[in-house]
């Protein structure tokens, strides 16, 4: 395979795509630890505790027990029969991949977010931290964090952009019900990036007592690697389930990407199976030539929230607001490992617009009786476009990373039918 140069950077193609990051938290030139000095000792401490927990079989046993009995894992790998028929009809019957859903929306709290949160909360307990903070965009990570904090009797503060508080009201109610304090963030653009700024400000202030539970594969090292590791259960299960169902590995994987944690969780266990095509789908909002949230397609490398990665920004390096119909994808950055996987060419990054996601959302509801969240509807939009081009024995997996209850008002608004 020949490698295209991306922006003058020619990344080395490694023997394995699964060994990163290096000891400084770098995936190629991406990642790192770009934080204020106040936080540095904590981040180093977190890294030590995480390394110790990883080596400790009782940590894994405790987490596995929770994933089974509290989350309801393993989540099914479901053959989406009518969607497959739909793709084959589009292809005139001769072609059309077999479409499977990895049903992360069936997890407790309705999304993949809980996988990571339980891992981090167990770690926080080991570190003796009694106060948990989190940022949230769509509210799924906030709900998952509030849930785990309720279960373990921990104080929980969730920062959420004031704009997102408005457009994701059901999740705000859920967090309140679970005993969390939701703080609407009024600074900056009042969305996810500002919620993350505010969570970092809280952390800088309350370093001694507080654990910051980051919801995606971004932030300073060790967060991108740690969150990925906790989400890898998605890909590991998919692997085993597909082997059981079809006797071989899938041929292609699709997942939506905001920060990129559901995608990284699905992709990572397959990165060294070079025959598996991997597609990440960013939010193209109103279109890539208009306002969107596709950091890889429309951004360039920069440094924000503790890591170097692709960012949406202006000429002066000022961060620009993303736009997506989906609050969970509306982030002007992306996890650093995705930036690296893009540049090495191992993963193909595509995008889907608001309208394409809405169409896929409706199609999935009507054909499969599954109302997806708007986030995975982006992945679905590209999957149903590519599926008809593939042979009939092509095994395609879409990560159904969340359920759509939280989006019903948004969708109704757009479709004009309340």
């Amino acid at each position, binding site marked *: 395979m020949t490698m295209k140069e991306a922006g003058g950077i020619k990344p080395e193609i490694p023997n394995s795509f699964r060994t990163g990051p290096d000891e400084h938290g770098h995936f190629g030139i991406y990642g790192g630890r770009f934080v204020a000095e106040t936080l540095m000792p904590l981040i180093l401490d977190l890294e030590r505790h995480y390394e110790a927990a990883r080596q400790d079989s009782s940590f894994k046993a405790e987490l596995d027990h929770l994933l089974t009995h509290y989350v309801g894992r393993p989540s099914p790998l479901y053959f989406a029969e009518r969607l497959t028929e739909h793709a084959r009809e589009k292809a005139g019957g001769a072609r059309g991949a077999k479409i499977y859903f990895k049903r992360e929306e069936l997890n407790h709290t309705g999304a993949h977010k809980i996988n990571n949160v339980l891992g981090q909360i167990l770690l926080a307990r080991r570190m003796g931290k009694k106060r948990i903070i989190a940022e949230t965009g769509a509210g799924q990570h906030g709900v998952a964090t509030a849930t785990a904090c309720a279960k373990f009797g921990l104080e929980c503060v969730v920062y959420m952009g004031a704009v997102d508080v408005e457009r994701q009201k059901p999740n705000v109610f859920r967090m309140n019900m679970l005993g969390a304090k939701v703080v609407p963030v009024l600074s900056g653009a009042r969305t996810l990036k500002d919620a993350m700024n505010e969570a970092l400000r809280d952390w800088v202030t309350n370093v001694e007592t507080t654990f910051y539970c980051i919801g995606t594969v971004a932030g300073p090292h060790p967060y991108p690697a740690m969150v990925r590791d906790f989400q890898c259960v998605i890909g590991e299960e998919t692997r085993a389930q597909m082997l059981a169902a079809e006797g071989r590995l899938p041929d292609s994987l699709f997942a939506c990407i905001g920060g990129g944690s559901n995608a990284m969780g699905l992709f990572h266990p397959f990165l060294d199976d070079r025959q598996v095509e991997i597609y990440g789908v960013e939010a193209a909002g109103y279109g890539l030539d208009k306002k969107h949230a596709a950091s890889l397609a429309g951004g360039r490398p920069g440094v924000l929230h503790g890591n170097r990665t692709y960012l949406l920004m202006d000429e002066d*390096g000022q961060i620009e607001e993303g736009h997506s119909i989906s609050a969970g994808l509306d982030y002007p950055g992306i996890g650093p490992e995705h930036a690296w996987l893009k540049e090495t060419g191992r993963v193909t990054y595509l995008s889907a617009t608001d309208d394409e996601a809405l169409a896929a959302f409706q199609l999935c509801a009507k054909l499969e009786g599954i109302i997806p969240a708007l986030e995975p509807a982006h992945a679905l939009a590209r999957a149903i476009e590519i599926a008809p081009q593939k042979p009939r024995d092509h095994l395609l997996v879409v990560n159904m990373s969340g359920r759509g209850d939280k989006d019903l008002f948004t969708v109704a608004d757009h479709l004009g039918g309340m």
Partner: protein
Amino acid sequence: MSSRIESRFAELARSRRAALVTFVMAGDPDLETSGAILKALPQAGADLIELGMPFTDPMADGPAIQAAGLRALKSGATLAKTLALAADFRAHDRQTPLILMGYYNPIYVYGVDRFLAEAKKAGVDGLIVVDLPPEEDAELCLPAIDAGLSFVRLATPTTDSARLPAVLAHTSGFLYYVSITGITGAAAPEHAKVAAAVARLRRHTDLPVAVGFGVKNAESAAAIASVADGVVVGSALVEALRKSLDQSGKATPQTVGAIVDLVRDLAKGVRSAERGFARADTSA
């Protein structure tokens, strides 16, 4: 290396008083007013100047400095214009040390080498970049030292003795002690804790130690000045500026004066301080 910072602290050590280090945001509320404020600062009693480089996402700053950055960006501030502002100030004042303070992304995007060359040419003496800990020294700190600029590091209450040597390793000019765990503009620190922290830092370094975060008036400035080599004031100045603006956020005839008055007051506080812990003058 950065002779202006070193000579200024040496000079002040001889006069047995602490430095008043004032922070203002470049381009707040507009470039012209910002330039006028800069030029008025030394006369009003500022011994060193920190000039903020506006950034959309200042994760270690409180509401006052966040708002200042957004006002500046709204008025059209960019890193190139901040450098021009610095050059303009330097043409007017050859002595007062000027330190650029901000976040890494605008510098990274501008290009590290280009930024350092232009900053040096503009007469900038040092840099404070909040989100570059020693672990990321290769990014900007080491190239800045090579380019002849000081890299002023922050030490915080969480920087323990085991970590301090790493923090001090490539710090030059002075050490900036952040007196609280928190964001800029937060509550004032306890005096006794600051005194103990400064004493601890002095066991590890001969660099002057400036203390910031939470200094709001002449009284708190005097208290810090009695134990440290420098007192950094930022949020209070930025707030004074905000209060002088008209309803649409534009400068008024009172804006420059509002800053000058507060700096005069702070300078009085700093100069009145009894320097019980003054460092022996080693430069004479």
